[in-house]
């Protein structure tokens, strides 16, 4: 089953001679439960692509279909709500809310949706990610690896259709990076969770099910369409 699909996705900045083609006609399909790594050098357009997938930025042309829904047909407000239900984000710099404790950060997307968290499911995530003893801690008292695990838990908590991870190991040392990657891999399998991750680290990318390479706004490897 296709969970994510892009059709001729383009993002141009500027006009005329100075036009920068950040994305230049990307066609991609990702199946449910896949763990995909997008690699590319800096400036290749991979971050812009990820932002498009998450609906944070609007394309110049083309469509993004998440879970059967063309997301750019939604208004901003609807898009935000769609995002909190269907898409989980993991950022390089964790981006936890400093005034909320670990548990509150994890269930934040659910509470923003006005729902009560599914306790059993959240507990399962917490156990899988080994955060049980840290639930009442504030993010500043956690190590980088721990913070990233909280971020992953937060991304999982709303049972999204897809998790988008932007250089999730970018701020971590190599051992912690491998731990976090292992956890991503485990969650992908355990919760049948689709994960799209961008990284410039080939070694990390090797842990994914599938590698897509982007150069100059185009897919060079792994389009599979």
């Amino acid at each position, binding site marked *: 089953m296709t969970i994510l699909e892009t059709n001729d996705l383009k993002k141009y900045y500027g006009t005329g001679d100075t036009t920068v083609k950040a994305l230049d006609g990307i066609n991609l399909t990702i199946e449910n439960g896949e763990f995909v790594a997008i690699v590319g050098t800096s400036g290749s357009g991979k971050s812009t692509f990820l932002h498009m997938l998450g609906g*944070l930025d609007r394309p110049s042309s083309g469509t993004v279909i998440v879970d059967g829904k063309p997301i750019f047909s939604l208004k901003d407000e609807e898009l935000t709500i769609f995002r909190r239900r269907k898409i989980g984000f993991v950022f390089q710099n964790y981006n936890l809310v400093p005034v*909320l404790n670990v548990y509150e950060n994890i269930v934040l997307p659910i509470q923003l949706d006005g729902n009560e968290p599914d306790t059993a499911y959240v507990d399962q995530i917490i156990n899988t990610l080994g955060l049980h003893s840290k639930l009442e801690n504030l993010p500043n008292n956690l190590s980088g690896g721990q913070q990233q695990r909280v971020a992953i838990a937060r991304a999982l908590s709303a049972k999204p259709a897809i998790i988008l991870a932007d250089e999730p190991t970018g701020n971590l040392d190599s051992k912690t990076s491998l731990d976090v990657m292992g956890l991503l891999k485990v969650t992908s399998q355990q919760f049948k969770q689709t994960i799209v991750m961008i990284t410039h680290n080939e070694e990390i990318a090797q842990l994914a099910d599938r590698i897509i390479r982007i150069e100059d706004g185009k897919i060079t490897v792994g389009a599979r369409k």
Partner: protein
Amino acid sequence: MIKVNSKKVIAKLSWRSLKANRSRNIIAVCAIALTAILFTTLFTLGIGTVKSLQEATMRQAGGDGHAVLKYISDDDFNKVKDHPLIKEISYNRMLCDGLENPEFLKRHAELWYLDDVGLRLGFCEPTSGHKPAAENEIITDTKTLSLLGVPQEVGAPITLTLNIRGANVQRDFVLAGWWESDPTFNVGQILTSRAYVDAHMAELQNNYSEDHSLTGAINPVIMFKNSLDLESKLNTVLVDSGYSLDETAPNYLDHNVNWAYLSTNFGIDAGTMIALVSALALIVFTGYLIIYNIFQISVIRDMRFYGLLKTIGTTGRQIRGLIRRQAIFLSVLGIPIGLLAGFFIGKALVPLVIKQSSYSESSVSVAPNPWIFIGSTVFVVATVLISTRKPGKMAADVSPVEAVRYTDGNVKSGNKIRKSKAGGKPIKMALANLGRNKKRTVLVIVSLSLSLVLLNTVFTLSQSIDMDKYLSKFVDTDFLIAHADYFQNDFFGKANETTASFVSAVESQPGFEKGGGLYGGREEPFTVTDENNPSPGINSNEYGDFIAAVYGLDGLPLERLELIDGALDYDKLATGNYILEGVKLDDNGNPEMDSIHYQTGQTMTLHNEKGTGESLDERAYTAREFTVLGHVAIKTYSNSDRIAWGYTFYLPADVYTQLVAQPAMMSYAFNVEDRYEAAMGNYLGNYTENVEPVMNYTSKLVSATEFEGMRSTVIMIGGALSVIIGLIGILNFINAMLTSIITRRQEFAMLESIGMTRPQLRRMLGCEGLYYALGTAVFSLLFGVIFSLLIVQWFCGQLWFFSYHFIIWPLVLVLPLLIVLGVIIPLVLFTVTDKQSIVERLREAE
């Protein structure tokens, strides 16, 4: 320590980082300007009021000279005039013992020669025409002219009757110039030229010590370099010039310093001092709350920059200097704005204060005194330096490594643990956000609360001014009529008594109910024999009897006497064998029983110099025994001549009139039917304006108006200060909210990316503002109540016309406004600052 000259580079750095902080600069300049406004208003108000009162006093004292010598000769004058301590000395010479023109019966006039210095110091420089030059030229004040019936015209002829050592001499003069009369000045001044003095030298040879004649006596006015310690300067001058300070010595010169300068007149008493110091402290604190907050926030935001500077070798001292330099630059922009605005606000408020003082008729002068500006500037700069000290230290002490990770809110969080499961709801998240920097939240709340508490205090004070207490002190009956001098505390006797025509005019008015006259005066002075007086010889006459005030009351005033002890038996009083002794009341209306001299039932002897002869030798010294029937209250403003005498007695008018040869009606008190009160007020206003201008009146209505004036003054001045302090509080809130929104831009982007909608974000910010407002409400209510009960109540107890009333409604009334502002301000700021897309803001941190 190595000294390095790094001034230039520090100046450059501080200038550059100043330019990078535009919104902070605007807010800081506003804050400094507002603080300067507060100081300047206070100083202008203070200095302006004291100065206006001082000038009024000086006018009453007859000039602003520091000291005068009296009745000296030309020889004496020449010996004294060149003394090095003297900055200026005027030559004021009396030219006759008095002016005997009948027009001057009610308002005396004097004929003088004043040199230019004398004219200036005596406020007698002609505003129209010119100074007298020819022998027959004179200048005078406008009231004297109108009494003489002389038109305000240069060259108008004036004939004066001079009393030269007892002999009347008529001389013709022409008018050379005039000036506007000062209403507080009760003696007419007629001034002629040096040529007149030279022409009448023989006549002006004065020998005051022998014949006590004033003709030709010189009373020079002396100005020293400053008004400090005038007494000893004057003594030094006299001793150095070869005169004695011993009154009995032959070479003694009569002298005195200007009482307008004596500190006792309006010296700063403890109450004023406390009020002044607490006002200054309040302003410093208000200023500190905002300026500290602004700089603290800005330093935290720039922490990475300071860390960077440290990494490349900038010392803590240099960083402190950098921040101080920015503060001073912002002060240079803010202070002048504040000084100007504050001066004009203060200037506008001074007349309100003066109106409430006993000098209400004086002109108000608020000149831009340099001390106002110097004082305010010093205080503002001090406030700014105190407020920026800690932020400066914080920037100076930062470790370069930590600085990189230093972001607002993540500051060494005291809490490691947070027990909550529902923080994700926007309303709860907002509360958690306020906890990011608890100290700042508290500062903002305190800053906002200050103006609310002040406002409440202002209204509490204005409501606590007790109309009844106030009125009962000043008026006992609906109306009191008397000669204008009486109201100037200058009733003497027949010369300025209440005219019978005025009394009968009033009695024939519709609505007149009941009235009665009060008789008194000093023309036939009363004395009493009192062996028990602890200080014989003071306020006593040649027989050892003590000066006393005796009043004869008729009708209404007699009935309205307030008995303190004994009996108010009118039949006994009418026999002429009984007398009532007056007892002083303190400010709160309680009798001062230790001021009485005779017990009820005791007999005493009353004397007076009965008769109408000029000299006391022509009079009879009477003696009459009375039994003290009881004690009654002296109501200074209704049943006395408004002067505090050592002994005061009350008699029925019939008895009193037997004691004196020529009874004088001091005043006449009466009541009217309520519905005729206003009509009577208008009638009296018109009558005293047009029919008998030297008569005047007071009424409950007039006093009630004065009272309302006092209340509105309290509200005006306090309200103005509250508004400015309120603006500072709101500015502080805006600054805290604005920086909080700006520094959290990235966090907001992240929240949006994980699904927080704009309305949710706005709700969260609105809630933060609301919590500030609610926090302020709780704190100000709590603090306002405590402050009101402890401080305001105490303060009201100190002033007699206050009865403390607890009120909190002014504060409660302002709270809805505060809550609306609290919610709206963050939303507006968010909308204004939120221009970038999510992606841009997310990237900002990377």
